[in-house]
C-alpha cells in the first residue's frame, strides 16, 4: 500500500462505504415501515390495497423503485463485505478490493434490474 497523506480511514474507501451503508440503511428502514403499512391494507379491503399499491405503478414511483433497489443491493453487497472483513482472516487486507468488487457487482445487478423493471413497466403501462 502506498503511504499517502492523511489517515488510513478518513476520506477513503473505508469511510465512504460506512457512510453509504448508513444512508442506505436508514432509507430502507423508513421504506420498510411504509411497506408493512401498505401491505396491511389487504386486511382492510381488496379495493383499499389495490388503490394504494397502484401508486407503485406510476412512472415516478418506478424511478423511486429503481433507487430503492439500488440502495438495497448496495447495502446487501457491502454488508456481505463487512462480514468478510470481520470473519475472513484476509478480510482487512483486501477490504478495498472487496469494495470495488461490491461496486462492480452493484453496477451489473442494477443494469439488469433497471432494464427488466422498465421493460415490464412499459409492457403493462396504460399511459397517463
Amino acid at each position, binding site marked *: 500500500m502506498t503511504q499517502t497523506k492523511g489517515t488510513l480511514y478518513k476520506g477513503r474507501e473505508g469511510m465512504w462505504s460506512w457512510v453509504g451503508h448508513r444512508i442506505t440503511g436508514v432509507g430502507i428502514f423508513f421504506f420498510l415501515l411504509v411497506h408493512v403499512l401498505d401491505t396491511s391494507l389487504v386486511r382492510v379491503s381488496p379495493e383499499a390495497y389495490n388503490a394504494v399499491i397502484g401508486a407503485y405503478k406510476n412512472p415516478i414511483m418506478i424511478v423511486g423503485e429503481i433507487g430503492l433497489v439500488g440502495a438495497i443491493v448496495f447495502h446487501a453487497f457491502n454488508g*456481505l463485505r463487512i462480514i468478510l472483513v470481520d470473519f475472513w482472516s484476509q478480510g482487512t487486507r483486501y477490504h478495498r478490493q472487496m469494495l470495488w468488487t461490491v461496486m462492480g457487482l452493484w453496477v451489473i445487478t442494477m443494469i439488469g434490474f433497471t432494464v427488466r423493471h422498465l421493460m415490464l413497466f412499459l409492457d403493462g403501462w396504460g399511459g397517463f
Partner: protein
Amino acid sequence: MTTTKSDALLPAQGIEAPRSGRIDPKYLRNGFSKSGSFEMAAWVFMRVSGAALVVLIFVHLAVNLLVGEGIHQIDFGFVAGKWANPVWQFWDLTMLWLAMLHGGNGMRTIINDYAEKDSTRMWLKSILYLSVIVIIVLGTMVIFTFEPCLLDNSGQLLESSPSFCQNV
C-alpha cells in the same frame, strides 16, 4: 518485544501495534462481560440476520418484480395467491421480523452515535422501539389473519378474489 512481520511494516519503530497492550476486558470479543454481552449479541445478530436477509429480500424482489408481469401483477389477488402457500407466509414472516429487528438495531446505533443529549436519545429510542413493536405485531397479525376469499353483502365472492376461491 518480539518483532513480527506487521511490526516491520510500521513506519515508526517504538510505536506499539494497535491492541498489542493490555485491553480492558469489556472491549474484548471473547469472554462475555455483563455489560458487553448484549452489544456482542447485537453485533452477531446484525451479521447473521444480514446474511439471511440478502437471500430473503433478493428472492422477494425477484418473485414480485422480475417474473411474470412484474410490478403490474401486484394486487390483492397476487398477495392472496402467495399467502395461500405456507412457505410464503413463513418467508414473509421471517423477513418481517429479521428486517425490523436488523433495521431497528441499526437505527438504535445511529441514534446512540448522533443524539448527544440523554433526553433526546431516550425519546428517539422510545419512538423507535414503539414503531418497531407496532410494525412487527401488525405485520404478523396481517399474515396470520389474512382472508383471501371475501364475500360481499349478498354472499357473492368479490370480483377481486383470486381464482382458487371458486373451488372453496
